[in-house]
Each structure stands twice: as C-alpha cells, then as structure tokens.
C-alpha cells in the first residue's frame, strides 16, 4: 500500500473561525498604538471590517484591482499628511498598520492568513516602541496567544472549516509555553546592543518632557500629563520634600519672549569637581525623553559611563535618550549649586546679565529700585509678590508683548514659569547674574520607599549668583508654598484645574482612598516591572553573566547564547525523536530486516511491505543454491509467527532463537553470494 503524502495547499479558503481569530489578533495588536493613531485609521478599520463582513456574508465581492489601488493611495496620502513627509516612527508604524488593515480586505485563503498572522505579530512588536508598561506587556502575550491560535486555525482549515476540531487556544497556549525557555534564554543572554541608528523617533508631542525653550504655557502643558517622568530610589537618607529640586536644564538667554536653553549645558565641566558631599545617593530610572538631559539634585556627580557633568552642574548623557535608562547619582543636595568654573564663571559676569533691549521697560525701572545683592534682592522680590495680590494658577491670562510687565504689574496671575521668568528678568535688570532652571520638583513617595516624579511635577525656578556660587531661589514657594510641600494638586485645589483635560485620570482622585490605593498598587507593579525587567541592560547582563557563569566578555556571552540555543534545539529534536521513535523492534524483526536489506544490496527488488515468506521465496529464486537454508528459515518463520501452536512442540522462545540464528546465517550466505542483475519474475497480484 503506497501512500502519497499530500502537500499543504495554500489556496484553501479560510473558514469563519480562522477569519474571526485573524481579525481579532490584528485588532488586539492595535491596542498599544491607540495613543497616536489618527481618527481616520479607526474609520478605515471599521470600513475594512465592514466590507470583509459583507464579503463573508456574500453581499459584496472582494475589492477589484482599481479599488485596491485607490485604497492604498488613500492610505498612503493619509499617512503622508500625518507625518508631514518626514520619516517618523509614528508615521512609519501608521503606514504599517494601514497596510496591514488593507490586507484584511483581501484576506481569503490560507496564504493570506499566514501573512496576516505575521502582520499582527509585527504590529504588536512595534507597539513596544510606544508602550512598555506591564499591562501592555501582558496584553502583548494575549495578542500572541490570539495570533498563534489564528495561525493554528488557519492551518487546520479544510474545505469544511476546522474539521479536525483542533482546540486552537489550548494548542496555542501549549506552543507558547514551550517557547518560554527560548524566550528566557534570549532575554537573559542576547547582547543588549545600543540602537544602531536613530530615527527621529517621536514627534514633539508624543514624548512629553521639557523643551528647549521656556515660554509661557510650556510647563502648563506638561502639568496636564500624569505620565511618569522618572523614578528615584534613595539608598539611605531622603531629602525633605521641599528640597527635591530635580535639575535638568538651564536657560540663560532671554530673546524678548522667552528663555532659551543655555549652550553651556552642552559643555563639559573642565575640571574634576571638588569633593562633593555625598549626602544622598540614589538611582534614577528615567523614561525616554528624546533629549540628553538627566535629572539630579544640586551638587551632583555620577560615575556612569557616557554621563558627563556640565559646567552648569547638570548631568548629560552623550546621546539622546530613546530608551528607558537607569543611572546612579551622588548629590550634596541643599540649595547651593556650587561655585562656577570655566565658561560658566566668565558667563556669570557677562551673558548671565544680558537682556534684550526695549523689552519690559516697566520691570527694568522697577528692578533698579531693588537691592543689588542676591539675598536682599530675593527678599525684596518675594516681599513684592507676597504683598501684591498674586495668584498661582494654571489658567493665567495670556500675556503678549511685554509679558513680564503685564504679569508683574497688572495680571498677577501665573504658573511657576511666569514667576521664574519674571524673577530672573528682574534680577538681571538689577545687575545680579541669574538664570532660569527647569526640571521637576517634588514627586510622590511610594510606601515601598521610592519616589515617582510625573510630568505634572515639572517646575521652573531661578538660580542667582551671589558672587561666589549659584544659589537656588524659588519664587513659586513664596506664592504657593503648598506646591513645594505637597505638590501641584494641593496647590491648585481651589481652582480645580489639576489635570482638567483628563477627567478620568486616577491622579485626580487622590482623596478617594481606595482609588488612591489602587493607583499606588498599579504604580508599584509598573515600577517593579521597569526596575527588574525593562531596565535589564548590558551592564546588568554583564553582571549576571559574570556572577552566574563567570564570563567577563560579551563575546563569551554570545557563545553561551549560541550554545544555549543550539542545546535547546538539540534537546527539542532528541525529545521529538524520543516521542516518535518506533517501538523497539524484536530481535526477530531486526534479523528479518537485516536479511531484507542485505538482499536489497545484492540487487534483489524488495517491495515495500514484502512479508517474510515472500522475501524468503524471492531469495530462494534468486539463489537456488541457498534453497535448503531458505526452506529451513521459511519453515521457522511460519512455525514461530503464524501457524497454530501444536501441543508438545518446543517452546516458542526456543523456536524463535533457532530461527534468528538461521536468518543470520542466511544473511551471511547472501552477503557472500554474487550480486544479481535481474530481479525475480513478478509475482501475482
């Protein structure tokens, strides 16, 4: 009986289960992308799914060539308008997503199904460029289960649907579980290479963070976001809440409407700083910002590679931060930023005093009347804003033209950037070198002992030069002490403008204790996730390798990785072979098989499925001189295998032993014989 193995057929139509699973897995893969996708993509998803459904019900046919070209052109144009012609990550992935959606439109047979599975998995993978929280990661597992189930269902297709009743989810779960060791090996051992190239990853809005310019409203925008900016774990002592000024950037040039980031932030401190008092040592896990600034308290040093200390005493990374980064810092803390060196020192006499001409004349005049010593000036300025009816508000009136004049003398309503900007301006007008510093202030302590700083903790303050050192001065503290002690939400309690754009944000409901608890729990899980899983980088990998495997080189790690993967595959194949191996053959069968192979080598035509008796007859025909031996074996085979046992005959075990001996002797005899050219005459049937 000859079997012909049918080849897998690719044009088998998909059945409803496979279709449903495919569509579900693609939709599930879209979830991490929802943050930035434009509305028309959702519209397109609905249209495509509607069309496909109508096709499934038989009301419509698959789109023709013209319709396909048209939809592709429309989608391309839509993506182009989204990214404005620039290659950006969102643009590219929106293009991928729209293309993947259009593929659903012509999803009809098995080949398309396999293709769509790949698309779903790829879309899900690109989603990790945007979202890496634990919930999104768990959701990624869900998508994988769906996509694998869709693949299995697609492959199980017969013309009548999933005829074989394959339990797709069970099989898919089992497959993924089997892949788990492989995943762990790759996770722990695959070299953590830095990005090989960087695309302009995110458009301005997508990554929230400080911008290169302090302008009215910039920080106000940040305060609407509850995204995490960074998290800090202190080793020992924690600073007081009102000392948590996280410096990120300085701004030293006023161009008439706002403050520009200092070029000195890019210059490395020319000398080693004097021994910094290591009052606080901590570890920061910073979310990607797309920029190079890092966060630290005043008077900081860091020994991380690629992190430099600038003349403005800030920590900078040597390339933009497109991935989550963790780094250790030691800081003195306090309000003294420290003495100035190099360019910063010269600037303290020159450019830190510069103001554009003819801007804010009233402020300049007023500043002339203020003391010219830093401490006195601070007191005088603070007294002014305390005396006059100033307000701390997220909804300031809009100031145009001489904005600081308007703010100080008529509007009197503003957010931290207004106060900081006005104070620096006034200080410079009074002849005191000053700069605006932007960063974050405060943060929320988690019961487990780490500090979470969110975008709405963004803050701006002032640093004044007192002749020897830069001193931190925060005018906002004077007008809204609650902002500094308890955070922005408390400070804006009466105004109710905190996160006004996000009515559903859990951060708005801190006063409801169970919601707060829930929020903190989620926060904690995400913190642990990013601390232990996401921030596993090359250093920690190196540490792990040297600790567990005693390897010092990354290359060694690669060998281990290759070895581990190879080992996994060898193990898998051996296991597979073990499962599928044919049951152990009896010595008799092996002797017969050996004889058959020997005869085959001599040129005897042995058909598949030739039974022993026929085999022996064929050998007898081919080698008449072996007739007695063949007959003896034939008799033995029949007696031991087929014939009814006769009472009184030798036990069958003895029979078989004799037979095996005879078969082996016959095999040796065949081996000694000459090869045969012709096959015996064809047998009947």
């Amino acid at each position: 009986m000859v079997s012909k193995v049918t080849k897998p057929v690719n044009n088998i139509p998909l059945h409803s289960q496979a279709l449903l699973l495919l569509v579900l897995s693609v939709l599930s893969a879209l979830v991490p992308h929802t943050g930035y996708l434009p509305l028309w993509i959702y519209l397109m998803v609905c249209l495509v799914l509607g069309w496909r459904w109508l096709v499934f019900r038989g009301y419509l046919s698959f789109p023709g060539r013209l319709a396909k070209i048209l939809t592709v052109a429309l989608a391309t144009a839509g993506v182009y308008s989204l990214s404005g012609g620039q290659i950006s990550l969102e643009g590219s992935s929106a293009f991928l997503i729209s293309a993947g959606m259009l593929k659903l439109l012509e999803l009809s047979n098995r080949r398309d199904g396999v293709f769509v599975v790949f698309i779903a998995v790829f879309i899900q993978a690109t989603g990790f460029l945007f979202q890496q929280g634990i919930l999104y990661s768990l959701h990624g597992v869900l998508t994988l289960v769906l996509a694998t189930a869709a693949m299995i269902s697609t492959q199980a297709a017969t013309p009548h649907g999933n005829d074989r009743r394959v339990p797709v989810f069970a099989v898919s779960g089992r497959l993924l579980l089997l892949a788990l060791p492989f995943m762990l090996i790759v996770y722990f051992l695959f070299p953590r290479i830095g990005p090989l190239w960087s695309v302009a990853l995110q458009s301005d809005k997508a990554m929230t963070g400080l911008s290169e310019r302090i302008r009215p409203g910039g920080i106000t925008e940040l305060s609407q976001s509850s995204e995490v900016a960074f998290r800090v774990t202190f080793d020992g002592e924690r600073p007081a809440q009102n000392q948590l000024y996280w410096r990120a950037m300085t701004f030293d040039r006023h161009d008439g409407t706002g403050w520009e980031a200092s070029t000195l932030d890019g210059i490395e401190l020319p000398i080693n700083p004097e021994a910094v008092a290591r009052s606080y040592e901590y570890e920061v896990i910073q979310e990607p910002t797309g920029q190079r600034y890092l966060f630290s308290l005043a008077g900081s040093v860091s020994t991380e590679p690629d992190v430099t200390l600038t003349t403005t005493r800030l920590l900078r990374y040597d390339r933009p931060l497109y991935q989550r980064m963790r780094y250790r810092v030691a800081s003195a803390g306090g309000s003294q930023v420290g003495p100035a060196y190099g360019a910063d020192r010269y600037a303290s006499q020159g450019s830190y005093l510069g103001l554009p001409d003819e801007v804010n004349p009233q402020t300049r005049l007023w500043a002339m009347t203020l003391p010219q010593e830093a401490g006195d000036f601070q007191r005088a300025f603070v007294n002014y804003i305390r005396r006059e009816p100033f307000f701390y508000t997220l909804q300031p009136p809009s100031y145009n033209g001489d904005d600081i004049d308007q703010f100080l003398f008529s509007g009197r309503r503003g957010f931290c950037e207004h106060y900081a900007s006005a104070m620096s301006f006034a200080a410079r007008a009074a002849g005191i070198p000053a700069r605006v510093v932007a960063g974050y202030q405060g943060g929320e302590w988690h019961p487990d002992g780490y500090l979470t700083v969110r975008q709405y903790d963004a803050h701006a303050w002032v640093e004044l030069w007192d002749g020897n050192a830069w001193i931190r001065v925060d005018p906002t503290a004077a007008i809204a002490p609650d902002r500094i002690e308890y955070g922005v939400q408390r400070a804006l309690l009466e105004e109710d403008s905190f996160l006004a754009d996000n009515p559903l944000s859990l951060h708005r409901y801190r006063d409801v204790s169970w919601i707060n608890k829930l929020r903190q729990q989620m926060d904690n899980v995400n913190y642990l996730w990013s601390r232990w899983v996401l921030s596993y980088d090359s250093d920690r990998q190196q540490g792990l390798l040297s600790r567990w495997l005693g390897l010092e080189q990354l290359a060694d790690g690669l060998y281990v990785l290759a070895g581990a993967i190879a080992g996994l595959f060898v193990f898998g194949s051996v296991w597979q072979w073990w499962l599928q191996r044919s049951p152990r053959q009896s010595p008799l069968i092996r002797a017969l098989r050996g004889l058959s192979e020997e005869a085959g080598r001599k040129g005897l035509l042995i058909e598949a499925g030739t039974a022993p008796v026929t085999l022996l007859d064929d050998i007898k025909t081919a080698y008449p001189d072996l007739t007695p031996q063949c007959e003896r074996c034939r008799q033995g085979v029949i007696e031991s295998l087929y014939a009814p046992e006769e009472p009184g005959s030798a036990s069958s075990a003895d029979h078989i032993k004799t037979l095996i001996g005879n078969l082996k002797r016959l095999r040796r005899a065949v081996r000694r014989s000459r090869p045969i050219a012709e096959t015996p005459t064809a047998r009947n049937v």
Partner: protein
Amino acid sequence: MSVVNKALATLGEVILGKEPQLKLAVCCMLAEGHLLVEDLPGMGKTTLSHALAKVFGLGYSRIQFTSDLLPADILGVSVFEKIPETAAKNAGKSGFRFHRGPIFAQVVLADEVNRATAKSQSALLEAMEERQVTVEGRTRPLPEPFFVIATQNPTTQAGTFPLPESQLDRFLMRISLGYPDQRAERELLEGISRRVIVDSLESVIQPDVLAALQQQVRDVKASAAVLDYVQRILAFSRNESAFHYGISPRGGLALLKAAKAWAVVEGRNFLIPEDVQAVMTAVIDHRIQPGASRKIMETVAALA
C-alpha cells in the same frame, strides 16, 4: 489435486488467462461473500458468474437490471388464483398465491446492477444482507447457500446509478476482469462459443463439499502476528490523509475472512501476511475513498 484446484482449472477453461481473478472469485464463494464484478460490457462478467454457479453445482437465476425494474420483479409477487369449485382436490383453495421472484436461487446473477434505480438496487442489497426477504408482511428465507454475483459497468458510463458506499460495503470483493492477453484472446477466437462450454460444464464441488470448505475457512488460525499486521493496515487507512475515510470494522472483518479463504485455497490452515496482501485490493478497493477524490472535492470547494 485438491477439489478447489480442480474447480479453478475447470473455470480456467471458460475464462482464459484470468487465473488470479478466478482464484479471488472462488475465495469469495468460500468466504460466503457476495461478489461484484465491475468491467466494461463484453469482458466476460456474465460468463464468469454463470460458470461459477455451474462449477459449484448451485441453482442459478439471472436478473437483468434495467432502469424500469421494480422490486417485485426481483422478490416476487402475490397473484390471485381462482381454483374452480369442481376441482375436488383443491376445493376452496382460491386466493392469493406468492410467486417467488428470481431472488430465490442459490446463485443470483444481478446483471448490470447499476442500471437500475436505487429502489430496486436496495431490494436486492437488503436480501443480500439479511439472507431473507419480506414481502407483504411475510418473511421468507432465501435458499442456502446464497450468493449474489453482481456485475456493473464502470460508473463513468452513461445511464448508470452508482451504488452508494453503504451498499458497496455489502460485497465482500470487487474484481474486474480486464482485457485478455494476446495468447488467451487468440485461443478465445479459435475456440467454440463460451456459452456452449458453460452449458456443458459439470459440477466440480458438491454443496456438502462447499459447506465443508466454508467450515475450513472459519477454522483457519490467525496468529497474533497476522492480526497485528491487519490492524496496522486498518490504522494506516484511517490515519493517512491520502484517504478520505478509512476502512470500517466490517471492512476489517471482511479482509480477514477473505484472507482466510485464500489460505484455504493455498492449502493452509493458518494465515500468513501474503494471504492478506493477495486479497487486499479486491476487498479494500471499494471500501475506501482515495485521496484523489478528496483533492477533487477540495478543488470544488475552493471554486464555490
């Protein structure tokens, strides 16, 4: 020369050059199974069945199946018979009397069985399975032994109603004769009419000898090794994707029975795998759906 071999030799005088098929046909009789002969018109199907009946010395009747054949034409019908009062012996015996149809014979030749409609086919096929017929509420047993030898034209021919799988299953074997080789054909052309030869055939196997042979078949010993072999074949036919569906348990029993008959013809009282191989094609071929038709079905489904 055993009685079986003598019968084979006699048959070989009528059907020339078809020893393997004749041996299978005889096996089928020994295994108490019905035989289906499928071939083109004029290949000797009818002659074979006629010769078989003669050689086994059995009563023989023939039904020519046509598209207007009715079940009553096969089974028989009750006719009202009026006996005159004057006939003293049979006074008052007027009434319906059952006239037995041609099915009441030891060997029934159902010629061109697939030319009849499904209704008539099933009348025959029911009788084959039950070995009795029920007409007008009365069950009448069929004679012993009872063989149906059906012939059919290939289903590709015009005007045929193919037998459904469930009914094909009732035939133990399906064989086809095929064209004779050159030497046999020459002999056929030179010799006298086959019909004359058939008419002059003598019965070789008496009914009591046949019953004894059938008992021998039942007594053939199938060792564990052979049963393993049969089971492997059955499992293969069910698991392999090359077949649309595998061999049924009834098919497995049929295979074993036929193989046992072959062993008896070979003069053995035990089975060897070669017996199974010898009858395999004839027994299995009409019971499985090959992958080819499955492929066709897939293509059709893809077109739909």
